[in-house]
């Protein structure tokens, strides 16, 4: 287990000596900050205009109008674009630099290698998400968001990101080419994402039947996120994301291991 920690630590150090991590953090905070301010200003204006009307005032909700659009809308899209950039170098870089020959001749298992790499990427995503807590803090100083809903949103976003990273890491194991790893990951995530749209099309439902369509919908990576953004933590969604992570890491471990046996 100690090796996992050291591998993760080395990965993290690499992220933070290269501009990559800073770039991703900067883009993330910039865009989320912009959209946060715009949402907040719009919300404040509505409060000013409708604040005197008790009927409208009931409709105004800082969670619904400021936080949810932010995390429900922007953040998953960002993850889709940026997280494959985090994972694309994890395994290909080892092969390119020839360091795979070091790590595979060290007394560590391929599972430890995969877990260490995954953990490193996960910490980067946690730092990224953590930086957005400043917006929540700003919000608490001017209004009273429901913290439970915010927490469920954060859990959902974290799990979604963790699943994206696991899929990205898994696909990066198949290639030595970082660009290919990136494109593969974005492609796979897009497919998993749009399964939800596909499953809702009636043309498909007529063809394959209700049950198959429901199955596809359940497979969609974004469908399971919806409840979290409403403040509902349903164990089936948590299990879904954890299964995606476990499966991806398992495949990645098998692929890394297969290099030993070629």
């Amino acid at each position: 287990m100690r090796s996992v920690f050291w591998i993760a630590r080395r990965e993290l150090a690499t992220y933070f000596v290269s501009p990559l991590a800073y770039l991703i953090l900067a883009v993330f905070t910039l865009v989320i900050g912009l959209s946060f301010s715009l949402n907040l200003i719009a919300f404040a204006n509505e409060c000013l205009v409708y604040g005197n009307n008790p009927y409208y005032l009931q409709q105004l909700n800082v969670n619904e109008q400021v936080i949810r659009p932010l995390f429900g809308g922007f953040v998953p899209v960002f993850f889709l674009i940026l997280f494959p950039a985090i994972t694309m170098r994890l395994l290909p870089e080892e092969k390119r630099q020839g360091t795979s020959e070091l790590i595979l001749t060290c007394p560590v298992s391929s599972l430890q290698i995969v877990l260490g790499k995954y953990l490193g990427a996960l910490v980067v995503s946690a730092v990224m998400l953590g930086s957005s807590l400043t917006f929540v803090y700003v919000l608490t100083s001017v209004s009273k968001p429901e913290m439970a809903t915010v927490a469920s949103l954060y859990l959902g976003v974290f799990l979604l990101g963790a699943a994206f990273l696991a899929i990205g890491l898994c696909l990066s194991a198949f290639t030595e080419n970082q660009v290919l790893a990136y494109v593969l990951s974005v492609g796979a995530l897009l497919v998993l994402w749009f399964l939800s749209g596909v499953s809702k099309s009636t043309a498909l439902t007529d063809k394959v039947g209700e049950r198959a369509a429901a199955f596809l919908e359940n497979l969609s990576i974004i469908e399971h996120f919806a409840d979290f953004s409403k403040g509902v933590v349903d164990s089936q969604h948590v299990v879904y994301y954890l299964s995606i992570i476990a499966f991806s890491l398992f495949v990645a471990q098998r692929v890394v291991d297969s290099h030993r046996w070629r």
Partner: protein
Amino acid sequence: MIEVQDLTKRFGPRIAIDGITFRVEKGEILGFLGPNGAGKTTTMRILTGFMPPTSGRAVVAGLDVVAEPREVKRRIGYLPEHPPLYKEMTVRAYLVFVARIKGVPGSRVRESVESAVERCGLAEVAGRLIQNLSKGYQQRVGIAQAIVHSPEVMILDEPTVGLDPRQILKIRNLIRSFHGEKTVILSTHIIPEVEKLCDRIAIISEGRIVALDTQANLSHRLQDSERISVQFSDGSAPTPANLELLEGVQSVIKDDGAPNRFLVEAKVGSQIARRVFERAVAERWPLIEVSPVKSSLEEVFLKLTGEERGVVA
């Protein structure tokens, strides 16, 4: 310390190594000499647990590399052909990382790293990023990486390739310092390197060990003829045909490097030098030099690996 028996590795239909068997005793330095693609790297990769053999057995420090890879890996220091460096790290941070994942206990990491740094002459660059170091220093970091966990066995794949002569000298001295202390296998296709460093030499060709012995024995074993180089001054020098008439001579080759210089090869025990001298006196040939030509390791190598003379220099 290392025992390899009938080791075979196939990549699909291609046989990379074919029934290799050898032993290395504790403290010995064994050199793998062979042309590129002969199977040196593959053999090393199997010993280090990077890849498994198709068949056969390899035992390092009493442990089977397939059955107990982790224990074996703990005992081996491996320098691959391209040193496996995380170039964005500093030398010291890199060595600490390697020490940690090689399983050096936390309390001894600092001490192990410092001793590897000192031994490999890296003290002045220990705080610098590996990517900014010269190739020679990077190679030394590669060797430091291989000794940081004090392994009993070291496997070095072409440790001096691509270095300048001064750097080569330093790396060789470093490797020589392991003699008697660690069991070393090193591969190279540079002949003087094995001559200078190794106790025994294994010549590998097309996936097989074609000879395995000390350098002296190897040269001796292949000495099936007596050879001399003779030099005449200008004037009435003999032609090769004149020399071929001498008793026991098998061939006479005109040396391209100098006029009137010949390489004479004769049967063992024919005392060719003396015969040439006596004939020169009788015929009044202006003989100015006679010197014996020893069969060099290079020739042994070329002979055993079946390459044309002059193709590999």
